[in-house]
């Protein structure tokens, strides 16, 4: 089994800046531990044998800001979603595309090929195994991200 590539902070920054078309700043932070009171959107990435090899987790604010920014939805739309505790369907669809394209950060030369298998949106109950995997320590990257013109939140890449 080949090694899964753990994207570094600069790779994450470039991905988001290109995808959202905005300046993105980031810093490393302590591990994000999503749970019932600190909810997240999860992207689940699998290898060609359908084994779960990585997760990307975004907290509620970054889920809302990222989904709004990619679709040029005004920041107020993101704030409404945060207040509601869930993203409306349009923002969910936008965010799923962010997770889909984020697979490219894993797929560097020589690394295991991963693709997006599922997205579990903030506000829904994620499968327990996904929540448990998100708490895995070890090969992970925990970042504080700020999207210019929108706002900031947390993003974690976790290899499982």
């Amino acid at each position, binding site marked *: 089994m080949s090694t899964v590539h753990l994207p570094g902070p600069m790779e994450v920054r470039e991905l988001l800046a*290109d*995808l959202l078309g905005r300046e993105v700043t980031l810093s490393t932070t302590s591990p994000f531990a999503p749970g019932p009171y600190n909810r997240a959107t999860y992207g689940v990435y699998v290898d060609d044998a359908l084994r779960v090899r990585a997760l990307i987790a975004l907290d509620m604010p970054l889920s809302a800001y990222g989904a709004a920014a*990619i*679709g*040029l939805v005004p920041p107020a739309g993101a704030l409404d979603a945060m207040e509601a505790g869930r993203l409306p369907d349009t923002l969910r*669809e936008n965010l799923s595309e962010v997770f889909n*394209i984020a*697979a*490219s950060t894993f797929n560097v030369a020589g690394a295991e090929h991963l693709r997006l298998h599922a997205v579990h949106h903030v506000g829904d109950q994620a499968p327990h195994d996904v929540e448990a995997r998100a708490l895995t320590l070890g090969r992970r990257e925990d970042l504080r991200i700020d999207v210019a013109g929108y706002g900031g939140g947390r993003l974690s890449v976790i290899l499982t």
Partner: protein
Amino acid sequence: MKILVADDSRVMRQIVIRTLRQAGFGGHDVVEAENGRIAMDAVLADAPDLVLSDWNMPEMNGIDCLVGLRAAGCAVPFGFVTSEGSDDMRARAAAAGALFLIAKPFTAETFAEALSAVLAPTG
């Protein structure tokens, strides 16, 4: 000129159209298709001047769309805009007659470079 943008993601079609504008190709007519089947029917019916297509789509994927168009005798300039750009995919795209493969995420500069041989800038 008319450009057909095929992608099952609505927001990605928006981004492709926005990037076309940013790359200086904003004055062309753009039509959208949400999968390869719809794209193939639209190309054969409306004869656009360029197709920009995702690879993975429901109903019919982008490479099957391209192969189907060539089999039908359609030589429309065709480029992929896709989230995966492996060497294998690039080779398959070129062998099927694609002009280029742009990997997502992309920039206006990437679009300008790939499309300048096919489309006239509109400013």
